[in-house]
Structure formats: structure tokens, C-alpha cells
């Protein structure tokens, strides 16, 4: 397995694959399907300071090669997560990426401080794409100023490295990436979902109760690849890439674009064994490509070639 390990701030991963936040709960359900210790890491569902019930249903819809979700950050709150959920993950001995969300800076800071103290939490992942109630419904994730300010605040209180999860619903992703890097982020996660909608022809209304939802799945992969390609050339902190990964080839493509590790979200729903199957396949694809160690391909689409590439 030594050709698959990657090393990011706070994350020593034996392979670059983790389930994406919100698509894997706190791990226990998929632990019924396979041994989670095969994973490179696990990103758990967003934690908020207080418990949240989330949005009314329907919360999901299917689109061509994608899906919309508007779960609304349902979670039992940071305290319950630490007492009831995290301990069950200890036995797998894999790094834990704790995703946090909130509606005010204070929210985020409280959750970040508390959660980052937990010994099982390896790093924080700041989900900055939620509506910011205080600033009148604007999201932290769509202006560099708000994202930078929030990152600074969270860095002040966090005891662990902080990854900032970028929203793709912006004009200039590099600007966002640079802003949070300068604010002290240890890494980036990208991309979160694209804002989308589906209208039900029968009711003639938006299908999701929340009206809009986040688009994920293979449909958005070209957008993710483009954004990771752009951002990775403008920052020197590592990127956890995500958006539409279904296969080992998708992992390679995203790492060539500039990701140092990847997260697999929607694919888990289509195939509960998605993560372990991708991990297994990775070796085969690297062999076919003649790559010695997976880290050699990170940013390979824009870096000068380290290993000779195959001719077309």
C-alpha cells in the first residue's frame, strides 16, 4: 500500500480517499457494509453549535448524472457528536476530518474550538457555504472578505489544522482560494455543491421543499476539475478535491488537476462500496499509467512532467 499514501497537514492518509462530508453520516451506517479502516480518512457530517433539524422534505432530487440535496445541515449538535458519534470511529484508526458549519462567526468559533479539542479529530473542515443569517443571508463562501475574516477567527481558536471548503458559486475561485490561504488556512476542500433546482411538472413547483438545492455528482466534475486546476496553481496549501468522483480514473484526473487527496460523496449512494472499490482500483490504474507513487501525479496537468507520460 506504500504507493498510495499521501500526507497533508494533520492528515497522514494511507491512501488519498475519504468519504465526503454529509454523504457518510458519522460512519456507523457504512461500517455495516465494510471495514472503515481501509479508508484514507473520513469526513464526518457537518457539526453546528446547537442541534439542527434541517429542512422539510423532499430533501433530495435526481438530475441527469447528478443529484440535488437540501438536507439543511441536520445534526445533533457538537456536544452529542463528540459524546455519541466520534468514539465509535476510534477503532478504525483513520484520520477524522470534522466538518463544521454555522450561521454566525461566533457559531463557527464555538464549534471549531470545542471540536478541535477532541483527540479523535485530526483537522477541521470549514463549510462556508451556508447562509449567514447575521449578514443578511449572504454566504461566507461567496466573498473573499467574509471568507477571509471567518478563516482568521476560526484559526485563532482551533487546536487543529483548518481546511476551508470552498463554494463553486463564485465568479473567481482563485480569488477565494488565495484569500483563505492568506487568512491562514492549512488546506482547501473543493468543491461544495453548485446551486440548482428542479421543478416538478405535476405540482408545477420546485420539487425540493427548500426550492433550491446543491448539485453534486458526475455532472459537476468538469467544474470541479477546472476550479481545482485554477486554485492549485495560485496557492501553496494542499487541496482535498471533490465533485463527481465515481471511479479511480476520476481520482487520478482530480489529482492531476491539483488535488492532494480526494473525497467521494454522491458515489456512496449509488454504490455503498464506492470508496473501498476505488481504493482497490487505484493500484491498477497507476500500474497502467506507469506511475510509481500516487504523489507523483499531484498537479501533473500543469507541472513540468516528473514521470514520462504515455503517448496518446
Amino acid at each position: 500500500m506504500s504507493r498510495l499514501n499521501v500526507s497533508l497537514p494533520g492528515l497522514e492518509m494511507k491512501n488519498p480517499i475519504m468519504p465526503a462530508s454529509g454523504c457518510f453520516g458519522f460512519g456507523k451506517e457504512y461500517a455495516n457494509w465494510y471495514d472503515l479502516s481501509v479508508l484514507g480518512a473520513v469526513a464526518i457530517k457537518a457539526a453546528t453549535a446547537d442541534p439542527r433539524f434541517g429542512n422539510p422534505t423532499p430533501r433530495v432530487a435526481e438530475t441527469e448524472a447528478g443529484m440535488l440535496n437540501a438536507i439543511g445541515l441536520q445534526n445533533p449538535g457538537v456536544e452529542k457528536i463528540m459524546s455519541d458519534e466520534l468514539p465509535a470511529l476510534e477503532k478504525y484508526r483513520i484520520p477524522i476530518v470534522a466538518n463544521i458549519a454555522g450561521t454566525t462567526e461566533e457559531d463557527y468559533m464555538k464549534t471549531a474550538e470545542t471540536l478541535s479539542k477532541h483527540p479523535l479529530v485530526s483537522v477541521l473542515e470549514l463549510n462556508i457555504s451556508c447562509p449567514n443569517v447575521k449578514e443578511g443571508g449572504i454566504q461566507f463562501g461567496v466573498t473573499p472578505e467574509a471568507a477571509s475574516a471567518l478563516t482568521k477567527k476560526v484559526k485563532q481558536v482551533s487546536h487543529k489544522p483548518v481546511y476551508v471548503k470552498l463554494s463553486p458559486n463564485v465568479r473567481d475561485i482563485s480569488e477565494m482560494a488565495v484569500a483563505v490561504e492568506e487568512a491562514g488556512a492549512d488546506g482547501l476542500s473543493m468543491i461544495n455543491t453548485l446551486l440548482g433546482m428542479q421543478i416538478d411538472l405535476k405540482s408545477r413547483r420546485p420539487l425540493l421543499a427548500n426550492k433550491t438545492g446543491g448539485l453534486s455528482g458526475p455532472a459537476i466534475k468538469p467544474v470541479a476539475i477546472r476550479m481545482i486546476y485554477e486554485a492549485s496553481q495560485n496557492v501553496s496549501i494542499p487541496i482535498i478535491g471533490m465533485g463527481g468522483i465515481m471511479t479511480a480514473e476520476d481520482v487520478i484526473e482530480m489529482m492531476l488537476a491539483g488535488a492532494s487527496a480526494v473525497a467521494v460523496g454522491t458515489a456512496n449512494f449509488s454504490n455503498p462500496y464506492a470508496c473501498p472499490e476505488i481504493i482497490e482500483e487505484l493500484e491498477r490504474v497507476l500500474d497502467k499509467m506507469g506511475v510509481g507513487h500516487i504523489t507523483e501525479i499531484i498537479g501533473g496537468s500543469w507541472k513540468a512532467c516528473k514521470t514520462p507520460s504515455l503517448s496518446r
Partner: protein
Amino acid sequence: MRRLNLDVVSQSIIADSIYELTVEGSGVENMRVPGQFLHVKTGEGHSSLLRRPISICDVDILNQRLTMVYRAQGKGTVWLSARKPGEKVDLLGPLGNGFTAAQPAGGEALLVGGGIGVPPLYYLGRKLRENGVRVSFALGFQSKKDSFYIEKFHELGQTDVATADGTLGMKGFVTDLISDRKAKVKPVVFACGPSQMLGALKDKTKGLKAYFSFEERMGCGVGACFACVCKADNKSGYVKICSDGPVFAKEEVLL
């Protein structure tokens, strides 16, 4: 709870847009609880990312055969209805918690189904009868052309039918069928159908033990994504239909 790749044995259309699909293979022998469901992959490649929840309609444990009855309505179920013998169906199952609780041993059960909520009641009815329970059925459909399995239910017990347009059985709703019977025998009620039906039934079954199977749009189907959450009268304030249910005591889920 496994991923199965089953062989199509037969596929036939048994009512307007209603298909009966039988598949077989290893893993089916675990499908012993009526009311549990399957999460069925539809379409090729990555075109349909979300699986479709379909109830277990009947199981032949000995021959590892599983029957689903479903309506071909949208993209996924229309695809499923085109599967032929020689092809495979990829499904997760059995998922969820079925009609396990409070089987009225030696007693009386009333099974109430509406439309495409009817299929799981067939397996349940068969199982209850095997356990010596007297079962009767109240089934509701839009119209005669939408109805199915009536004869098969008759073989298991008294079966009353209502249709919205009166083309079969009584004209009206399935809830209209149960008024007097419940007074007499105090059956345990098991129901599956649209939420309006379940709402009406909740009132109609006051004083009776009743277990309802609920529907909600699903993502993972295994309890991880929180897509299928409904408010509930319990400690956490909610249930996940896919993993806590789909069957609950009627009082638990707040419609």
C-alpha cells in the same frame, strides 16, 4: 444488507403501468421480513445516481426468488420495466425495519393498502397466515385498470376493494372499507400507501394497534444522508424512514 446482483427470471405487466418482476440469486434467502425494502440501481452508468426504493412483494426462500411489483412512472422504473430474462438487477437489501413488531399471534390482522403501497402486504399476509393469524385486506386503487393481485389476496383472506371511480369494488377510499369491521374484531392494522391515506387511517384506527409503512425520497437508503427524515414523537424528534423504518407504530411518525 448486501449488494446483490440478481438474475431476472420474469417480468410481466399486470395492470396499467404496473409490473411484476421476479429475480433470483444468492442473498435473497435473507429477505425474511415483510415490509423491508430493496434499493434498486436503475439505468446504465452514472445517468441515474439515486437508487429506487421498492418493497419486497414476495419471496421464495427455497428457490432464492424475489418478486417486486412496481409502477413504471419515471426514468428509473421505466428502465427497470424493460429488463428481460438474461439480464441482471443490482440491488441493496434487505434494507430497513419491516412489519416485525406485534404480530398478533393467533389473532386477527387487517392489512390496508393503497395503490402502489399494496405489494408489501402480500408477503406480510402470507407470513401472518403461516403464523396462524387470520388476515383480511382492504385495498384501494384509482380505478379497475390500476388494480392487481386481487385474486392472490383472496386466497389469503377476505379482500375488499375500493376504487376512486367505482370501476371495481366500492366507489370511494380504502378507509371507507374498514369502518364496521374494526368495530367487531379489534384487529391489529398494518398499512402501506400514500400519506393522505395513512393520515385518514390514523384517525379511523383510533384505539387499535396499527403499524404503517411510510414513504420518503431517499438518498443513501441506509441511514447516512438524512434525506428521508420525518418528524417523530420520540427522543430525537425525528426518524429516518430508510433505516429506522419504513415501518413504524402509527403514533410515532408525525405526518
